[in-house]
């Protein structure tokens, strides 16, 4: 761990990974703390936790992650400070693919789901538009990790008052010119999927599922697709929206 920063309700952890490969946007790591994490004595958290790469500044060998505390694992990780060890396994999974010929990327994020959009924007360029939705003002402060985000909040405390998908609807007028990249809670992703499907806009969705291993060993992280269950850790987490009947749960 090299640094820990707070962005409203979110925590950014920075870690030094001198030997690891450069991750692609949309890939993730399994993180755990070496102490007070299972470690032979069996407490919960027991399994490592999955986190998208927020940012991996070229040449720095640094990895940044954006965390929201929702349970014992995220709580424990957010206690770590500079100098503490952080166990990491990755990069894992397959990330975002470049947009189809003739289409410009449009990024859409909800809550902590903005994480993979930051590294994607780093690669695509800071002027790539990104629409982001948050619960409230404290969460909206997380938008600071992005370049020129267009904001929406559920409670109207910052930006557009309403779900981020209302912002997306406006953009779908350019249906023939865009490709959507989205990450966020299931309900948001399902709304994005349905809107894009109706507008015939291709979309790449970064999904989530509870993961025990992150490298295809447990078959625990499946999502239903048109061709059956797929393991999100090896066949995702980014899936083409066309593969999905719906984003569930």
């Amino acid at each position, binding site marked *: 761990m090299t640094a820990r920063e707070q962005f409203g309700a979110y925590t950014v952890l920075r870690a030094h990974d001198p030997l690891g490969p450069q991750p692609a946007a949309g890939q993730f790591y399994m993180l755990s703390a070496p102490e007070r994490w299972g470690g*032979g004595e*069996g*407490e*919960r958290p027991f399994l490592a936790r999955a986190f998208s790469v927020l940012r991996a500044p070229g040449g720095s060998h640094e990895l940044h992650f954006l965390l929201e505390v929702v349970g014992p694992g995220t709580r424990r990780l957010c206690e770590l400070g500079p100098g503490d060890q952080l*166990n990491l396994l990755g990069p894992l999974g397959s990330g975002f693919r470049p947009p189809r010929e003739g289409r410009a990327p449009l990024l859409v994020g909800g809550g902590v789901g903005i994480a993979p959009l930051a590294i994607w924007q780093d690669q695509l360029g800071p002027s790539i538009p990104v629409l982001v939705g948050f619960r409230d003002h404290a969460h909206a402060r997380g938008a600071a990790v992005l370049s020129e985000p267009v904001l929406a909040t559920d409670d109207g405390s910052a930006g557009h008052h309403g779900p981020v998908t209302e912002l997306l609807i406006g953009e779908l007028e350019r249906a023939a010119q865009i490709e959507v990249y989205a990450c966020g809670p299931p309900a948001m992703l399902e709304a994005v999927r349905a809107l894009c499907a109706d507008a015939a806009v291709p979309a790449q969705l970064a999904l989530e599922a509870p993961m025990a291993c992150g490298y*295809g060993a447990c*078959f625990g992280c499946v999502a239903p697709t048109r061709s059956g*269950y797929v393991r999100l850790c*090896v066949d995702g987490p980014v899936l083409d929206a066309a593969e999905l009947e719906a984003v569930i749960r």
Partner: protein
Amino acid sequence: MSAADECGGVAFCGLRLAHPIINASGTFDAIAARRAFGDELLRRIPFAAFVTKTVTLAARPGNPPPRLWELPGGLLNSIGLPNKGLPGFLERDLPELRELPLPLIVNVMGSSLREFVLLVEALAGREEVAALELNVSCPNVKTGLDIGAVPRALNSLVARVRPLSDKPLIVKLTPNTTDVAATARAAEEAGADAVSLINTLRGMALSPGSTEPWLGGVTGGVSGPAIRAVALAQVYAVRAAITLPIIGMGGVQSGQHALDLRRAGANLVAVGSESFRDPAAASRIAAEVGSLRVSTQEIPQTATFSTR
């Protein structure tokens, strides 16, 4: 690797293994791991033999998600044995698995005697396959439980498939039973070459704040440290009942845990859930077993364990 050198080789049912640590079925997918970690995996695979996830006759999608729930000291899973089915396994998985520099143990499960027969027959002639493991103990699938828990039924099953193959036949016993020694004896008497245990214990979790089961499969199997003491008791009971080699597993996280299972009577030790926490865990455990053995002089040398 050094673990192997320190441990010396291990003989198991006529196979020669580099060390006594293998994987537990369904807890390591070598093909997916190779995709994730590259060909390096082939050189550094942490096990002394590789056991496949359970293969069934027909393809299975597995249980609906959610499939996982974390427990104090372990996890609960209801994966539901997703697999490509026997034809898919033979065509697509086996060619990849044969590239592993390890003996390959194929774990199979039938939903009837006939299915078990077809599975064993189909694999009997494949020289890539070093041994077969019969899963008669998966708590998520009704048939597994029924056959594996009733000594007489288990005896018939093993006796029926035994003549179909020259390969070592390992019977994976169910732990959800009153008398695991009785089922072990049934397997031995029917001609099995080894037994493995324990599979997961039947468990359950509710969705937070509701009366609905959390798991898509309703109940699931408990694995990890929480079942270690149960595993030790069952291996000990089986060792007292039969002379066949035993593959012990359940909650192994360290060389000490592996050594405890060996002391209780296991010849090989399989690492399961701990690999989820660290894909190289088995390699560390094998090394720890090696160094514990060297530094602990009072442990008797077992017949199946000789230095080369």
